[in-house]
């Protein structure tokens, strides 16, 4: 399949070579560090808008990881829905609910201490469990799954969940619109 594509696009072969293991390793670390560091930024940032920006970078990093995992459709969905949709919504929410950009609610020292302790313990436990449970294994070379297969699965085996989730979205739309409207009614 891949070879055929390369046969048809000989110049493409020279311009963009297929990613090799080393390149994907490098890209993995690039995206992983982007995602992880930004996630830390989300935790540590005190300005809520900056938090959202860090979240954007995390999401972008995760989208990059999806690319490496051969899930490019998912990567695009991540960008469209999360970065382009949900996050815009969140920032909208921030803009509507804060009177000035510098709004801050500081947590108490005790809370910070507890949170850090708990987080460190959970992180350590999870990492150790993962390392014990999933020893390193050679990456499997798989056929590039195409978007067509994903579409067939979505409209085949997962047809009913797919439809249900559409209905759910409709319900959410109505519900959110209602809540927003109720807000105005309450205001008057």
């Amino acid at each position, binding site marked *: 399949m891949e070879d055929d594509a390369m046969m048809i*696009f000989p110049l493409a072969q020279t311009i963009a070579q297929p990613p090799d293991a080393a390149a994907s390793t490098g890209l993995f670390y690039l995206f992983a560090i982007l995602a992880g560091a930004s996630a830390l930024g989300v935790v540590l940032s005190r300005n809520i808008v900056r938090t959202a920006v860090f979240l954007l970078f995390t999401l972008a990093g995760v989208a990059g990881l999806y690319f490496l995992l051969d899930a490019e*459709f998912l990567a695009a969905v991540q960008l469209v829905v999360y970065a382009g949709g949900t*996050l815009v919504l969140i920032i909208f929410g921030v803009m509507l609910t804060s009177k000035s*950009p510098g709004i801050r609610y500081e947590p108490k020292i005790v809370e910070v201490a507890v949170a850090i302790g708990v987080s460190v313990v959970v992180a350590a436990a999870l990492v150790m469990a993962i390392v014990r449970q999933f020893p390193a294994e050679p990456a499997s070379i798989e056929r590039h799954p195409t978007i067509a297969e994903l579409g067939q699965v979505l409209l085949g085996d997962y047809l009913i969940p797919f439809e249900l989730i559409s209905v759910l979205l409709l319900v959410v739309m109505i519900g959110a619109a209602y809540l927003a409207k109720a807000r105005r009614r309450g205001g008057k």
Partner: protein
Amino acid sequence: MPVWMLMLAGAVSPFSMESWWFGALGISPALWMRVIYSLLLIAVVFLPLVSVIAMFSIWWERKVAGHMQSRLGPNRVGPIGILQSIADGLKLILKEDLVPRSADSWLFRLAPYLAFAPVFAAFLALPFGPEFTFEPRLSAGLFWVLAILSVEVMGVILAGWASNNKWSLFGAMREAGQMVSYEIPLGISILVGVMSAGTLNLVELGFIQGGGLHTWLVFQNPFTFLAFFCYFIASLASNKRAPFDLPESESELVAGFHTEYSGLRFSFFFFAEYAAMFIVGGIQAALFLGGWNDPFGLIGYYHQRFIADPSGIDHAGLMVLNVIAAAVFVLKALGIMFVQMWLRWTLPRPRIDQVLYVCIKVLLPMACVILLGAALWQLFVPRRPGLPWVDYSPWRFGDYGRDQALGALVTQVTLALVGVGMFAVLLGWVVYAAISGRNLKRRLTDPAPIPM
């Protein structure tokens, strides 16, 4: 290296210490080569390409505006003012980089890059030619471009927010609402084209439309024809181009979200806008207008001949062909850009509620109806299977009857004739306007007194 770090690594990881650290530092030479190669590609090919296209379009827009308003436009720097953009760019680079005191400076600095980077990245997938594409293997290429363009809005919103300025904030909010709404009809009308093509890969889209005018997706059936216009309108709005340029409407919001920006940062927004225009036009050309193909299918035909040459692939021929194809593609995209500019200098600007009304109550239902119609058409009107030139010869109309594709052929040819007619009318209009405008301009700018 501190010993305690090594110990920590050893305690956490069951793997040897050497591999942990050596892996990080001793990344294989192949990887370094890849990194350098990629960076070079970006620096040598991408950035100049995007910049040149953006700068050219900025100059062109000013020329078009001049024509429309019966003046000359830029005419001092270089012949017919072609170097004006470079001069402006130099000026902007040299300007002082201002950050308002009450602004959120970190976000304020970040926002222009956030606006520019996605547009830049979207160039990755544009199919300039059959082989002249930076990343041909994106099986969801079209969707991906759409996705990455949707990130651009973040830059605008953050710019508006971080400026800590009422007008900027209003502009940003408008942009957010407008873009999020118009992405729906945009996506649906893209879906119409994708549905009748059966692929999201932009290169494959080009091959499918390689058989001449009547195989272009816009002429595939009446619904793709409608979707073409639906897409154009929605793309105007999601690109915040006039008449949907509410986020920066200067009569109410000073300059909208980039009121506080100056210098290089401002030029980033400017570049992003024009590059996005090109991308949107390019996507429209690639999806509906046959991509890099000429109206007679010659490029597709010769490409197939060069590829399937029994004496091996003809690389030189392919190279030339790709250059021609890229020229055709860029020409198409620029043509669409021209229409965008034309509209900007022709139409008045509506109110924001009218803009949203058009989206939700007109464009969206229309797009849904088009989608439904296209689906039904797809179900019931069979097309010739296979790729043009590879599996069949698209200009041998007699064969269509054998494949039960007569209905499709009649539709395609009819629509293609309609399209050619429309194009001819448009072209005549433009040429007439240009000629008559030139006469008027000569009279207006002539130093000699106008005879009474």
